[in-house]
Structures are given as structure tokens and as C-alpha cells.
């Protein structure tokens, strides 16, 4: 292993050939990295690249199968988060663990490993708030605070332990730009005082602005270690996404049929606490085509899906048109009956009811287009036959239509859900993350079904974070970023660098205009 930096002091944290597998997946393979004292080190990668697993290993939540962790030059074992904190590792998670009904100071006291005298704690917290000039009132109740303020509680919690390494997991995903600026100032000050920071993100411009060095992960491997200030955003995007992408033959070239789904000027405020606002989303999906919508998680994908499915209504009927008919004000049942089927990303509790049998889960969404419950009377026989046909046609591995949805593996349940929707022969199918957590064989089968459905004249919209998948499936591709959708463009005309730029935070509009 070559060490690029001159090492007079041992690195604060060094990972040496760390590997970690889960059944069926190699989450981390042979990962080495080192973080110097006072360095802000970025861990960069797409969803599923192995960032979370690696961080969990560092924080003692999970144990590596192979490899060693060194702390200030000496090998250590980190069997638990408590042990990690004892070493001086603090972590701020993406989702906070705070009690809404309690005050800031009470929440801080609860999070500590040892009991501390309340007055002494107050003084310490006040000192930290003072020295980092963090605006936060220790006596406020948490439910009255903004997300940024809540994050500060977690940061103060960590700082109280005088950490030597602070891990920040996607810290800006829920912050406003102003809050991000303030966070960066705090992080720079913490680093200047000698604390190392491991900063996990996929937002390239943030990493360029903040970090001293970056380790880029893809598919569980380290693909590069670089200086983000010297590297271009484009180059980092390529590294993150992978330049050796499979080239897919796109038979059709924009010669698709009539517009089946038309969306124009869809704006919708996100639901609190983490919702993203959709801003002026417009696109058309034509008969026979697959439209891909790329984007990193949490940029409005979930909001777009619920707005299309009818779980949330548009402001005007004309905003969403199905085969020319305005349906923006129609509810989920009516839209489905009219031929617009949707599959949300979350299988358990959204696309399916975990405690229901497969038969009942078929009834859940298929009853509008398949006569399973004429005039409100459930026909048990038809419900079971429908579920059986889905199980058979889509090769769902299960004990039968009476099996509870929760008893199926993720991939099998996904096959059932996809089968349930495709089996209704919808005019338009909108699906989010069709192959998320699905094994390769099942994923291929699901993709084939989507291609076949489009070939029969339906319009298919695939929202996915898996670029490989989108490049394989889609005829046209657009990117969703902070609730805005870029102009869809034929996949054949797109370079991987353009997609990377669109996804990596440089705004879609800019990348799309020089078409």
C-alpha cells in the first residue's frame, strides 16, 4: 500500500483491507482508507455502494469479516457503538434519535453513556454552543425546532464526548442551503481543532467545498482516492457511477406512439418533516416507450410517485392527463380504473400490506380493473384465482395465495407486486425502484416484463437510482434533482458524463439546456 501523504503522525483512523458480506451480497470488499488528524475526509458513492456498511463497521454497529482497523496507529477492535464512543468516535446519523416532547438539554442528557450532573451538563453545553457559535436554546422542546436545529443537538451530543473522529452520515440531505452553510462552518472549526471528520455524501459540490480528501466507493470497492478540490466534479461523477457502463442497443429512436401520460407544471409542497417540494414538473410518456427518471435518493422521487398515483392530488385537473383525459383531481382508485398503475418504492406497508395474504394484496389494487369485487362484494374465488395467476405467470416463490406478504423475500414480493400491476394491463405504469433489493435473476425477469409491457403499447415510467438499469431499459432519460425534473432526452444521445453531472448536484436545467 502506498501512502500518498507524508506520515509523521499516524493516521487517526486507518482501515486495512476491510471486507464484509451479507447473504448474497458483498457489501464491502477489500476497503482501505486512512484519515489524518484534523482532516475532513469524504466517503463518496451512490446508494448501495457500501458507504453505510463501512460506517457501521467503524462505529461498531457491525463487525468486519476481514481486515483491521487502526486507531492512532494501533490496531483496535470496536465491538459496539459504546466502544467506538470510548475511543473518541462520534456519529451524527441521517435520521435523529430525539424525543420530541423533551427539551434539548434533556435529550442531550439521555444520549450520554454516563449519568452527568444536570447543572454541570448545562454549563458544558453552554460552553460548546458558545465556542462554536451554534444558535440553539437548550431549554426549547425539540418539537418546536427546525431540522437544522435538531441536527445541532446531535452534534453537541457528539462534541460533549470530545471526539477525535466525527462521522456525519448524509448530513445535508434534510437541510436548507442556509443551514448547510452554517453546518460547514461548524465542521471546519471542529476540524481545525484537530478532530477528524468522515463526511458521507453523494453531493459532489458539497464535497468539493468542504473536504480535504475523498474515497470513492462503487459496488463495495474503493475505486479511487482523490483530492476533491483538485479533481473536477465531472471526473468524480464518472468515478462514482462507473465509466465502464454496459452499452444497450436502443431499437426505438423516439418513434413512439401517442402521448399516454402527460404531466405539465406539476408543483406540490412536500409533506413534513422530510418531504421534497415538486417544482414545475413536466413530461410526457408515449405509447411503447420507457421513460427513465434518474436521481439520487430523496430528490422528490417518492413525492412524484404519490402525485402520479393519486395518493396526493394536483392543484388542477389539467396538470395530469391520461390518454388526454384530465385526471389531476381524481383519487387513486379512479386513476387506476382509468388505466394508470403505480408501484411505489416501499414494498412493505405501501405497495403491499405485510400482514395480508397475497390474495388480499392482489385485491388491494387490482379490484379497480379486474372484477374481484363487483358492487363491493368480494368474490373470494376470483381474488384467489387472480393471485394464483400472478404467482404462476411471474414465478413468485411462495407457499400459495394464502401466504402472508411479510413471509416472502423482498424479491419475491416485488415480483408479486409487479405482476399484480402488469397483470392488469395498465395504459401507463409508473414504477419506482422496480428491482431494489431483488436478486439478479428476478431483476432481469422484472425488466423483461417492463419492456414487454411497453412493447404492447403501454407507456412505462421507471424511477430509479440504478443508472445501469435505466440505461438498459429507458428510451428517454430525465433526472430529478431537488424536486425538479430535467427535460427528458433520448438515452442514445446521452454521455455518461452528462448524466453524472445532472445527478451530482449541478442543476439539471443547466446540463439539459446545452442539448
Amino acid at each position, binding site marked *: 500500500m502506498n501512502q500518498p501523504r507524508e506520515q509523521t503522525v499516524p493516521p487517526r483512523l486507518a482501515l486495512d483491507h476491510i471486507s464484509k458480506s451479507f447473504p448474497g451480497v458483498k457489501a464491502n470488499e477489500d476497503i482501505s482508507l486512512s484519515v489524518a488528524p484534523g482532516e475532513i475526509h469524504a466517503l463518496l458513492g451512490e446508494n448501495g455502494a457500501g458507504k453505510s456498511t463501512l460506517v457501521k463497521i467503524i462505529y461498531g454497529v457491525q463487525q468486519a469479516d476481514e481486515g483491521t482497523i487502526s486507531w492512532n496507529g494501533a490496531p483496535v477492535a470496536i465491538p459496539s457503538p459504546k466502544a467506538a464512543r470510548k475511543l473518541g468516535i462520534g456519529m451524527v446519523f441521517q435520521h435523529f434519535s430525539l424525543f420530541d416532547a423533551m427539551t434539548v438539554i434533556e435529550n442531550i442528557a439521555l444520549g450520554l453513556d454516563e449519568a452527568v450532573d444536570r447543572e454541570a451538563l448545562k454549563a458544558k453545553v453552554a460552553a460548546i454552543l458558545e465556542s462554536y457559535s451554534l444558535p440553539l436554546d437548550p431549554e426549547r422542546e425539540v418539537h418546536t425546532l427546525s431540522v437544522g436545529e435538531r441536527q445541532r443537538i446531535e452534534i453537541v451530543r457528539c462534541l460533549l464526548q470530545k471526539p477525535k473522529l466525527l462521522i456525519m452520515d448524509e448530513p445535508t440531505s434534510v437541510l436548507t442551503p442556509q443551514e448547510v452553510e452554517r453546518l460547514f462552518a461548524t465542521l471546519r472549526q471542529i476540524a481545525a481543532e484537530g478532530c477528524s471528520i468522515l463526511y458521507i455524501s453523494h453531493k459532489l459540490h458539497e464535497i468539493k467545498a468542504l473536504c480535504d480528501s475523498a474515497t470513492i466507493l462503487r459496488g463495495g470497492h474503493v475505486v479511487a482516492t482523490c483530492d476533491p478540490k483538485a479533481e473536477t466534479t465531472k471526473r468524480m461523477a464518472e468515478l462514482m457511477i462507473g465509466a465502464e457502463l454496459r452499452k444497450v442497443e436502443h431499437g426505438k429512436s423516439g418513434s413512439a406512439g401517442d402521448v399516454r401520460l402527460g404531466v405539465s407544471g406539476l408543483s406540490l409542497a412536500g409533506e413534513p418533516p422530510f418531504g421534497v417540494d415538486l417544482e414545475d414538473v413536466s413530461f410526457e410518456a408515449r405509447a411503447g416507450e420507457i421513460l427513465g427518471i434518474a436521481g439520487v435518493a430523496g430528490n422528490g422521487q417518492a413525492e412524484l410517485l404519490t402525485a402520479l*398515483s*393519486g*395518493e396526493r392530488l394536483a392543484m388542477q385537473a389539467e396538470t395530469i392527463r391520461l390518454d388526454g383525459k384530465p385526471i389531476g383531481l381524481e*383519487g*387513486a*382508485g*379512479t386513476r*387506476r380504473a382509468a388505466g394508470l398503475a*403505480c408501484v*411505489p418504492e*416501499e414494498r412493505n*406497508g*405501501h*405497495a*403491499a*400490506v*405485510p*400482514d*395480508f395474504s397475497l390474495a*388480499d394484496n392482489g*385485491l*388491494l*389494487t387490482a*379490484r*379497480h380493473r379486474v372484477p374481484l*369485487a363487483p358492487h*363491493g*362484494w*368480494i368474490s*373470494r374465488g376470483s381474488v384467489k384465482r387472480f393471485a394464483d395467476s400472478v404467482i404462476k405467470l411471474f414465478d413468485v416463490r411462495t407457499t400459495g395465495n394464502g401466504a*402472508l406478504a411479510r*413471509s416472502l423475500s423482498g424479491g419475491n414480493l416485488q415480483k408479486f407486486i409487479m405482476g399484480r400491476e402488469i397483470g392488469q394491463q395498465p395504459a401507463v405504469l409508473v414504477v419506482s425502484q422496480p428491482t431494489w433489493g431483488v436478486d439478479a435473476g428476478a431483476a432481469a425477469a422484472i425488466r423483461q416484463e417492463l419492456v414487454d409491457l411497453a412493447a404492447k403499447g403501454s407507456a412505462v415510467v421507471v424511477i430509479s437510482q440504478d443508472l445501469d438499469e435505466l440505461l438498459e431499459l429507458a428510451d428517454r432519460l430525465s433526472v430529478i434533482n431537488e424536486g425538479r425534473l430535467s427535460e427528458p432526452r433520448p438515452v442514445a444521445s446521452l454521455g455518461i458524463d452528462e448524466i453524472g453531472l445532472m445527478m451530482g448536484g449541478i442543476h439539471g436545467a443547466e446540463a439539459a439546456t446545452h442539448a
Partner: protein
Amino acid sequence: MLEWRRRREPSTAMLWVSPLIAIALTMLLGMIVFTAMGYDGFHAVESIFLTPFLEPQRWADIGVKAAPLVMIALGLAIGFRANVWNIGAEGQYIMGAVAGTGVALLTYEMTGWWILPAMALAGVLGGMAWAAIPAFLRVKLQVSEILTSLMLTYVAVQCLYYLVRGPWKDPDGFNFPQTRMFTADQTLPTVLEGSLVHLGIPVALLLAVVAWFTMEKTTAGFAVKVVGLAPAAARHGGFSAGRTTWATLLLSGALAGLAGLFEAAGPFGQLTPQFPVGYGFTAIIVAFLGRLHPLGIVFGGIVLAATYVGGEIAQSTVRLPQAATGLFQALLLFMLLATDVLVRWKIGWKRRAA
């Protein structure tokens, strides 16, 4: 060492056996508690849980007490399935009786077969109206229906007190706080000649079957279950949570109101301040004892009705205070909730670490 282990799938057997375990534990613990208090614990439990079933002359009484419990619990259970927690059935029960009594007092000098149905309709509407308040507050303002429905019960009690002590006081009643006795056309007919068994009992059984059919065979029942189990999936499937909240609250209010009217027009024959005996609250226990299943509720209603009958027996046989009935009922609810864990978990010997 014993340890809890999560079952891979919820146990269907335990679903039905755990209420029986709860009853057994209630009897056991009750026996211990009352023995410790210096009563004859064994005979107390025998009087409350066994005597009512062993003496046939008590059966009619059990039926009369089970009917309102079953009717109220049916409505509550459907709401509970949808995650709508109507705790104020007692209030809806009272307002149903009040509304029906209002019709009775208006039709006091009239005769006709239509009077009783009109009273029943008023009872239904009275209960619904009282349940509509928490429904409105929950759907429009996200106010917890648990609190509003419970608090409205006490408002209903005060309404009742005001009416029987004021405007509705029987003019020939020697100033007792009670309404006139209902006339023959205003009284629930008995089903069995010469017994207490009134029309409410077959109606309650019929309603149980209808409720079972609705929950199992209609999309309305399906909607209730989806909304309760997975609200996001319900929204995705095109079911409205707000509409379901309205429907289940109005339904449980209607059934509680009808039960109240039956009680007023049956065993009571008038309204008095003693009218609220807590059926609306006991029905919550009935609903859980019956596993929120309409047919299970019939069983649960019979068991809880027996504790009322048995509580009266125990007052004379072992001189138990009347409050003991409530204590046993509360103990049963506690045990029911505790044994519920057995459906998803099982107890096993801890395996030694490898």
C-alpha cells in the same frame, strides 16, 4: 433460562387460545387477591365465573346483559380494526337512550306499531350524532378521538341527569328523578313468553352475523382492515382514511345508541340516573376478548355478561362488594393485553451460546 422468541408467523392457535389463558389467569389472580384480602377467594371466583353458567335460571339474565355488550362491542371492534379508538361508547349509548326516550315522551299519548321503530331510529341517530363530534374533530383537526369520545361520555351523563331531574321528570313520580314509564307500544317485546329475554338478544346475534359478513365479504370491511394495518397502502389502494374514520365512528355510535335505546325500552322501561352501568366501557373488554372478530365478540359478550350476573351472586354468597365485578373485568382486560404477546412470541428454553 427461559427466553422469548419471535414467531416466524403469528400463531393462529394462540390467537384464539390466548383469551382463554387470560380468563384462567384472571380467575387465578382474582382468587389470590381476594383471599389475601380476607374473602373466600375460591368461592368468589366460582360465584362470578362459574355459577352463572351452571344455574339455568341465570341464563336469561346473561343474555339480557350480553345483548347490549355485543352490540356495542361489534361497532367498537370494527373501529379498532381501522385504528379508530372510540372509547366513549358509554356516552353514545346514553345519548341513544336519551334520543329514543325523547320520541317516547312525544308519543306518550299515542298508540301504534310504528312507535318502537321510531324510537329505535332516534336511538341510532342519537348515538351517531354523539360519535360524529369526535369523528369531525379527528378528520378535520387531527384531535385524538380517544380523548374527545371519552370526555363526551361525561357530557352525556350530565345531559341525562339534567333531563331526568328537570324537563323530563315524571309529573306523577313523587319528585323522583326519573321519566315516565314507557307504554306497551314503547317497550321492547319479549321473545320468550314470561321471561326477560327481549328482542334485543336476537337482534344482537343477527347484527354479529351481519358484521362478520361485512368485514369478510365486502370492500368496505376490507377498507377498514387496510386502513388499520397499513395506512399508506390504503391510500395507495384508493381507500380514504378520513372516510373510514367517519364510517367506523358513526357505525359504532349507531350500534351503541341502539343498544342504549334497547336497554331503556327493555329492562329499564324508563330513564333514571342509574341508567349508565358502564356497558359502553365493558364492551371494550368484550371486543378484545372476542379478538375484534364479530363471532368472537358474541362469546366475549356472554363471558362479561356472566361476570355482571356473577358479581351480583358473589355479593350475597361471599359478601363481595359490588366494585369487585369491575375489578375482575379490569383484571381480565389487563390479562388479555398481556397474553396477546403469545400470538407473536413464544417462550422457549434459552439455548446455550455456542
